[in-house]
């Protein structure tokens, strides 16, 4: 079982993350330079077949990938209004698409950012932008290939909950949130050290 950390504590996960089915014929999507980038931006993250094949649980709180939400938003409007729906953003999806999909991002109780592999550091920028530019105030959750050694950076990039990958030690992950006492640079949590303390 993967464990959830909220703030500095292991917590019960109230949310079910909806994962579209894999059929084996999906194109591989990775962010890229110009040509592919603009092509990507015009494309859906999941194939129509995946979107159509996604089963959405009829009750409970669910985390939906952005395209799944967009394809079902009329049907799910009342659950959204009831605060039962959060959104999962994948790192290659433009943050603008997410922002445009909602009048007020703070109507979402949770935004989760999904990374497929540890080495994908786009989640740091996305977290930062969600907090600083888009003013998102609710739970910002890191999901996917998340383990102890990103947590300090994730926290500074605005995340406040972390779904630790299965088989990884959540206690160690919590301890790592305190690895450094006085970081140098500004991030979502603080100004640069030279504005923070007198040296």
């Amino acid at each position, binding site marked *: 079982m993967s464990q959830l950390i909220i703030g500095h504590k292991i917590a019960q996960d109230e949310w079910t993350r909806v994962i579209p089915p894999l059929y084996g014929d999906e194109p*591989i999507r*990775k*962010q*890229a*330079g*110009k*040509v*592919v*980038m603009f092509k990507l931006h015009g494309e859906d993250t999941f194939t129509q077949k995946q979107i159509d094949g996604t089963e959405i649980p009829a009750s409970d709180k669910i985390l939906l990938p952005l395209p799944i939400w967009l394809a079902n938003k009329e049907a799910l409007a009342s659950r959204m209004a009831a605060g039962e729906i959060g959104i999962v953003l994948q790192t290659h999806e433009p943050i603008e698409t997410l922002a445009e999909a909602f009048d007020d991002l703070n109507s979402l109780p949770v935004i989760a950012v999904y990374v497929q592999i*540890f*080495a*994908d*550091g*786009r989640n*740091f*920028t*996305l977290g*930062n932008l969600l907090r*600083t*530019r888009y003013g998102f105030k609710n739970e910002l959750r890191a999901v996917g290939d998340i*383990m102890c*050694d*990103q947590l*300090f*950076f*994730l*926290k*500074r*990039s605005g995340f406040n909950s972390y779904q630790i990958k299965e088989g990884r*030690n959540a206690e*160690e992950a919590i301890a*790592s949130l305190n*690895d*450094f*006492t*006085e*970081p*140098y*640079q*500004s*991030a979502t949590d603080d*100004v*640069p*050290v*030279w*504005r923070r*303390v007198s*040296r």
Partner: protein
Amino acid sequence: MYKYDKIDQQLVNERVAQYRDQTRRYLAGELTEDDFRPIRLQNGLYIQRLAPMLRIAVPYGLLSSTQMHKLGDIAKKYDKDYGHFSTRQNLQLNWPKLEDVPDILEELATVEMHAIQTSGNCIRNITTDQFAGIAPDEVFDPRAMAEIMRQWSTFHPEFALLPRKFKIAVSGTKDDRAVVQMHDIGMEFFKNENDKIRIKMWVGGGLGRTPILGSVIHENLEWQHAISYAEAIIRTYNIHGRRDNSYKARIKILVKAMGIEAFKAQVEEEWSHLKDGPLTITQAEFDRVSAYFEPMAYETLPTSDASFDTNLASNPAFTSWVKRCVHAHKTDGYRAVTLSLKTHGEAPGDASSAQMHTTADLADAYSFGELRVSHQQNLILADVKLSNLFTVWEKARAAGLATANIGLLTDMICCPGGDFCNLANAKSLPIAKSIQAQFDNLDYLHDIGEIEINISGCMNGCGHHSVGHIGILGVDKDDEEWYQVSIGGKKGNDSSLGKVIGRSFAADEMPAVIQKLIDTYINERTDEEQFIDTVRRVGADPFKANVYAEKESA
């Protein structure tokens, strides 16, 4: 130089503790090989062909004698009694044990050193001109800004896992010795007509697989915005840079794909949100850091020294060393000295523990206790009195550090290559050695004059082959090691990329090939021409004709 306060020291200490724990978890089997890789890489630890390689950061190439002594001790205690100074002004240990690394880091921390971000896909060591602060042609001493940016980039949370490594260079002279156009971001600090400090900023330059000169992204940026503008650039890169193919992941590929105008537009849009915010460098912080880089306590000296003149007149070996290894200084009566790590027969950039201690002693006795590492892989005493040069020469010579070849053919840049590096197509060190053996005559070297031969063991170009006047690149042909030769590369303000002269060569052909290139130059040159000038004037054809002549008739 910069001294740690308690914040700096605490951060480095906490890093040691963190890495000690990570190593423990790895050795205990709690972290898999795959999990541990990005972690150790962030800490400068590679697993090489034969052993781990640990890269120790030497921020912008500046070292105190205490630090150098410590490096000498560490090389003796944990390695095979030597270290390798790299083209990134860092020190590499080729034989440390993985389980010793936490102890090595702990020892380094006692002298305000670390291995943070010396590898991995993050912002790497910021480099600058080895003559920063003392060069007569300098308009702005870039070291305080380099230190401010070192701190900013250290454990930057947003840029910890970029698409690829990210290198920044800064300089404060018109004559660019920091190769700023060959970096992911290059900054040249200058003074505008009102005497205000400004930055000319380049982006997307780089060596390696696709060598390319940077494009100017800002002509005239106020220095206070150095960090906010860099953040805008790197943020744009972090989101849009390619991650599907590591060979196409550097920012240069993104800049090229988008075009500099479109890229700049994105950056400017991003910057509009950051400009004048908390990232703006304050005068107070600039002054605090600059105070560490005040000029040394120089004596007031005459511009000449009688004993120096006498030695110069009577000792030809000293004279040729002065010609090659002694450099101008801002202050009357002082000179900078290069201690050559290009001894014939030794791997370029290698220094033994004993040599490290000697250089530290020399620094203490004659150069205010400071040393510098140049990106040409030599060591520098930046502030030596004219009257002490002869003594420094004698002592350096006794330690094998006075080969009078700086800027000459045997002052080659060479990556560790196939002897140490996993990525290599071919060995590079033996090629350097065989060329040194071919040209082991100082008078002849002086006659050939200034030339840069750069050698890389693979396309990654750590040996900067594409900007060598002669570039040598290891290539793999049917599992054999071959060498591709290019000529006409140059770094500096009038940078150019070398062009390949033709089919590649086997290792044992290389000394003869270089000899033929040199012979061609000697035939073709005018009195005042260096090798690169001749190549630029006559083109590659006469060189090719000579190199390939025999082959075709045979």
